[in-house]
C-alpha cells in the first residue's frame, strides 16, 4: 500500500496548459471501442475529446505522442483485442501507469464478466475508480463518464475555467445527487436536523422549543432512553462515568440529535448528555418520532442522514482516540523506560553515597580514635620516662645503687639483637658457668661477662637486685617502644584526617624523595632502587605531606614485592614534567601486583588484615596518599598487573589551590 498513486495536487506546471486539450481515453478492441466512444462522447462533448486505443500499450504510444494532453479518464474494457493474450487487468493498468499522465487518470473498468480475480493490485494501489457492467442501460455510461470527469477536474484542476463551469463554488459538482439520503448527507449537520424537525412539524404540528441552562442533564447514563432531543442551538457534551471519574468522550462530536443511538438500540443510555452552554432543544418522544416517520416516509432519509452523520462523527472521534491512545501508550512506554533508567541511576547513586558515607564515617572514626588515643599515649610515654628517672633517684640512695643503676641503664638501653645472637651469647655464659639455670638468670639480668657473673652468683642478694632492676629496665624500654609505636599509629591516623601548616614554595621534589628513601633505608635493604630523575621546576607544596605520600607509596610497593629473598625486588622512581604547570612522579615495582578485585578500591580508606599481616597505617596508606594528592590539587593513578604496578602522581607546580579547605 506504499505506492498509492497521488492523484491530488497535479494541476499542471503553469498558465500555459490551463486550456490544454482534455482527452478521455477508451482502451478497447474495435468495434466495441467505437460504440463506447460514441456513447461517452455524448456525455462529454463540451468537456473533452474522446480518443480510442486498441490496448494499453497503444494508449501509452498515443499519449506519449501528445504530451500536451491532459487525461482525466480512462475507460478500459475487460475484453481484449487479441483473445489469445490474457493479460490481467492488473498488468494492463500497470502498463498504463508507466505514463505519468495516465497515472493521474481515473480508471473505469467496463466488463461483461460476472467475476474478476485479476485486479487485486489495482484495488490495493487505489487505481480502480468504477466497475461498470456492459452492455448496460442506454445513457448510463455517458452520465457516469461525465460525473467522473467532473469529479476528477474539481480535484485536480480546481482553477481551470472548464472546472469552474462544471463545479459549484463549494467544490461539489453542480448536479445534485438524485437520492434524498446522499443529498441530505451533503448538507451540514445542523441543516439536516432543521430539515428533519421541519418534516416532523409538518406532521405533528409546531413543537415547543425548550430553553435549558448550562449544566442541565438531557439524558441520564444507565437510564432507559425513550425520547430524543434535537439541539437547535448550544453545545452538549457526552460524559461516561468510570472508576476514575467522569470521562468526557464527546463534545465537538456530539451531533445535533441527542439520544438517537440509544433509542435505535432500545437500551439504557451509555452517556450522560449535559448542556455545556445554554441550549435550545426540541423534545420528541419515541411515539411522536414513530408517528412522524409513519406518516411521512420521506422523513426516514432525513432520520438516516442525521444518524449517519452522528455515527460518522463519533466513529471518527473514536478512531482518533484510538490513534491518540496508541501514541500515548508509546509515550508512556518511553517515559516508563526513562523512569526505570532514572530509578536505576538513582539506586546506583544512592549506593555510592552510602559507600562514601561509610568511608567518611570511617575517616571520622579514625580521626576520633586518633584524637582520643593521643593524650593517653602521650601520658604513657611521659610516665615511662618518669619511672626511669625516679628509679634512678631511688637507686642513688641504695647501698648497691651503683651496680643497680648500671644494670638498669644497660638493660633499658640495650640495642636490639637477633634471637640467634642472643642464644649464642647465652650459650657462651652457660659454658663458662656450667650451670644452665644460673646462666639463664644472669643472662636475663643482662650479665654476660663470666667473671662478673660468677661474682654476682656468689652474692645472692645482689643477684636478686640485679634481676629486679634488669626487669624494670627492659619493662621501661618495652613501654617506650610500645608507646612510641602507638604514637606513630596515632600520627598516621591523624595524617589521614588532616594536614597542617601552610604550603611552602620553592621545594625540590627530588630532595624530598631522597629524604624519604633515607628514612626508609632499613626497609629498602634488599630492594634495588632505580632512579630516573628528569629536570623538575621547584614546586609549592606541603613538604612533610609529600614525604608521607612517598613513604606510603613506597610501603605499598614493598608490600607488593613481598618478602621472598630469592626474587629480585626492584622499585623504579621516574620523574618528569609533562607540561610547564605540572610535575609527575612514577613509582613502579615488579611485585606480584594488586588483586584485580580490590584494585578499584585501593584508594578507599579501610582497615585490613591480609594473610594475618596488618598493612601500614591500618590500611589507610593509599587512602592517605590520595588525600594528600587531592589536597595538593593533583591526581593519582594506579595501574597494576602481575610483575608491574605503577603509581603515577601528578602535582601542580603552583601547589595547592589558594582557597584550599584543609579539612577533609
Amino acid at each position, binding site marked *: 500500500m506504499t505506492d498509492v498513486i497521488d492523484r491530488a495536487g497535479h494541476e499542471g506546471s503553469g498558465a500555459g496548459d490551463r486550456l490544454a486539450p482534455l482527452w478521455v481515453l477508451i482502451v478497447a478492441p474495435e468495434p466495441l471501442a467505437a460504440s463506447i466512444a460514441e456513447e461517452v462522447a455524448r456525455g462529454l462533448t463540451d468537456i473533452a475529446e474522446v480518443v480510442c486505443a486498441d490496448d494499453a500499450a497503444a494508449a501509452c504510444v498515443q499519449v506519449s505522442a501528445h504530451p500536451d494532453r491532459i487525461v482525466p479518464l480512462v475507460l478500459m474494457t475487460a475484453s481484449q483485442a487479441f483473445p489469445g493474450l490474457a493479460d490481467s487487468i492488473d498488468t494492463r493498468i500497470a502498463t498504463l501507469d508507466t505514463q505519468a499522465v495516465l497515472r493521474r487518470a481515473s480508471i473505469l473498468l467496463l466488463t461483461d464478466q460476472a467475476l474478476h480475480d485479476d485486479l487485486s493490485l489495482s484495488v490495493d494501489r487505489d487505481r480502480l475508480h468504477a466497475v461498470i457492467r456492459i452492455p448496460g442501460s442506454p445513457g448510463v455510461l455517458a452520465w457516469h463518464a461525465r460525473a467522473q470527469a467532473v469529479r476528477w477536474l474539481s480535484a485536480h484542476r480546481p482553477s481551470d475555467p472548464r472546472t469552474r463551469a462544471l463545479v459549484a463554488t463549494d467544490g461539489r459538482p453542480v448536479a445534485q445527487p438524485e437520492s434524498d439520503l446522499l443529498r441530505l448527507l451533503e448538507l451540514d449537520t445542523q441543516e439536516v436536523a432543521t430539515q428533519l424537525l421541519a418534516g416532523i412539524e409538518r406532521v405533528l404540528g409546531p413543537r415547543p422549543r425548550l430553553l435549558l441552562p448550562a449544566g442541565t442533564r438531557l439524558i441520564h447514563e444507565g437510564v432507559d432512553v425513550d425520547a430524543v432531543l434535537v439541539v437547535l442551538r448550544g453545545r452538549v457534551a457526552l460524559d461516561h462515568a468510570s472508576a476514575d471519574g467522569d470521562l468526557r468522550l464527546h463534545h465537538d462530536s456530539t451531533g445535533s440529535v441527542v439520544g438517537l443511538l440509544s433509542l435505535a438500540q432500545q437500551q439504557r443510555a451509555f452517556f450522560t448528555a449535559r448542556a455545556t452552554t445554554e441550549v435550545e432543544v426540541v423534545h420528541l418522544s419515541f411515539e411522536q418520532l414513530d408517528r412522524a416517520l409513519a406518516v411521512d416516509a420521506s422523513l426516514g432519509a432525513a432520520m438516516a442522514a442525521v444518524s449517519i452523520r452522528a455515527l460518522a462523527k463519533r466513529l471518527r472521534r473514536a478512531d482518533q482516540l484510538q490513534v491518540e491512545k496508541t501514541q500515548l501508550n508509546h509515550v508512556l512506554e518511553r517515559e516508563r523506560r526513562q523512569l526505570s533508567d532514572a530509578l536505576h541511576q538513582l539506586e546506583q547513586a544512592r549506593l555510592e553515597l552510602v559507600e562514601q558515607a561509610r568511608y567518611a564515617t570511617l575517616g571520622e572514626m579514625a580521626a576520633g580514635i586518633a584524637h582520643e588515643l593521643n593524650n593517653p599515649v602521650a601520658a604513657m610515654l611521659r610516665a615511662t620516662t618518669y619511672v626511669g628517672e625516679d628509679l634512678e633517684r631511688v637507686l642513688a640512695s641504695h647501698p648497691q645503687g651503683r651496680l643497680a643503676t648500671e644494670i638498669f641503664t644497660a638493660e633499658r638501653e640495650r640495642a*636490639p639483637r*637477633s*634471637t*640467634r645472637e*642472643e*642464644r649464642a651469647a647465652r650459650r657462651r655464659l652457660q659454658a663458662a658457668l656450667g650451670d*644452665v*639455670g644460673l646462666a*639463664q*638468670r644472669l643472662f*636475663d639480668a643482662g650479665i654476660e661477662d663470666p667473671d662478673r657473673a660468677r661474682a654476682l652468683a656468689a652474692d645472692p642478694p645482689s643477684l636478686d637486685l640485679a634481676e629486679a632492676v634488669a*626487669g624494670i629496665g*627492659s619493662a621501661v*624500654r*618495652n613501654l617506650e*617502644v*610500645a608507646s612510641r609505636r602507638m604514637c606513630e599509629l596515632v600520627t598516621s591516623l591523624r595524617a589521614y584526617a588532616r594536614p597542617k601548616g601552610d604550603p611552602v614554595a620553592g621545594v625540590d621534589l627530588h630532595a624530598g624523595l631522597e629524604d624519604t628513601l633515607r628514612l626508609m633505608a632499613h626497609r629498602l635493604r634488599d630492594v634495588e632502587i632505580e632512579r630516573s630523575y628528569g629536570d623538575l621546576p621547584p614546586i609549592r607544596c606541603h613538604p612533610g605531606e609529600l614525604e608521607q605520600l612517598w613513604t606510603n607509596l613506597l610501603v605499598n610497593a614493598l608490600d607488593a614485592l613481598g*618478602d*621472598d629473598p630469592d626474587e629480585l625486588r626492584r622499585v623504579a622512581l621516574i620523574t618528569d614534567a609533562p607540561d610547564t604547570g605540572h610535575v609527575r612522579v612514577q613509582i613502579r615495582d615488579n611485585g606480584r601486583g594488586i588483586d584485580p578485585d580490590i584494585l578499584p578500591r585501593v584508594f578507599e580508606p579501610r582497615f585490613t*588484615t591480609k*594473610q*594475618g*599481616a*596488618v598493612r601500614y597505617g591500618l590500611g589507610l596508606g593509599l587512602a592517605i596518599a590520595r588525600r594528600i594528592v587531592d589536597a595538593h590539587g593533583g591526581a593519582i593513578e594506579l595501574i597494576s598487573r602481575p610483575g608491574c604496578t605503577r603509581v603515577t602522581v601528578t602535582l601542580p607546580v603552583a601547589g595547592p589551590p589558594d582557597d584550599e579547605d584543609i579539612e577533609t
Partner: protein
Amino acid sequence: MKLALLILEDERPVREALRRDLAAFARHVRIEEAEDVPTALEVIEEIDAAGDRLALVMADHRLPGTSGVDFLIGLAADDRAFATRKVLVTGQADQDDTIRAINEAGLDRYVAKPWQADALRDLVREQLTEFVLAAGVDPLPHLAVLDAERALSIVRERGDL
C-alpha cells in the same frame, strides 16, 4: 633430657613479656626464642641435637615472610616435633587462618593478645602435661612444671614407670 619450649615471635617486647611471664618455668624447662622461622628451625635442630624434647611451641601468627599457621602446619610433619603441643599466640589470625591451623596443624590452643599471665602459666603447665602423657615421657623429673596430680595419677595407672 629437658623439655623445651619455643617462643616464636618477631617483636622483642612481646617476646620478652612472654619470657618474663614464663620465668617460673625457666629453672626446669629449656625456654628458647626465635624471631623468625629460619631461627626457629635452627633452635629445633639444636634442641634435637642436645637430646632434649620440643614439648611446646608458642607461635605468633603474624611473622615476617610467613605466618605462624604455616609454620605450625610444616611442624606437624616434622619427626623432631612428635607430640609437640602447638599454641597460637596472636591478635590477628582471622577465622580462616584459625580453621586451617586446627585442621592442618592440629592446633591445641589459641591465646589471644593481650594475655593474662596466670592463665598463660596454667595453660603452659597443662600443655606440658599433655605432652608428657602423649609422648610417653617419664613425668617424674618434670613434676615441677606439670599438673602434678594428673601426672602422678597417670603414672599410677600405667604402673610401668
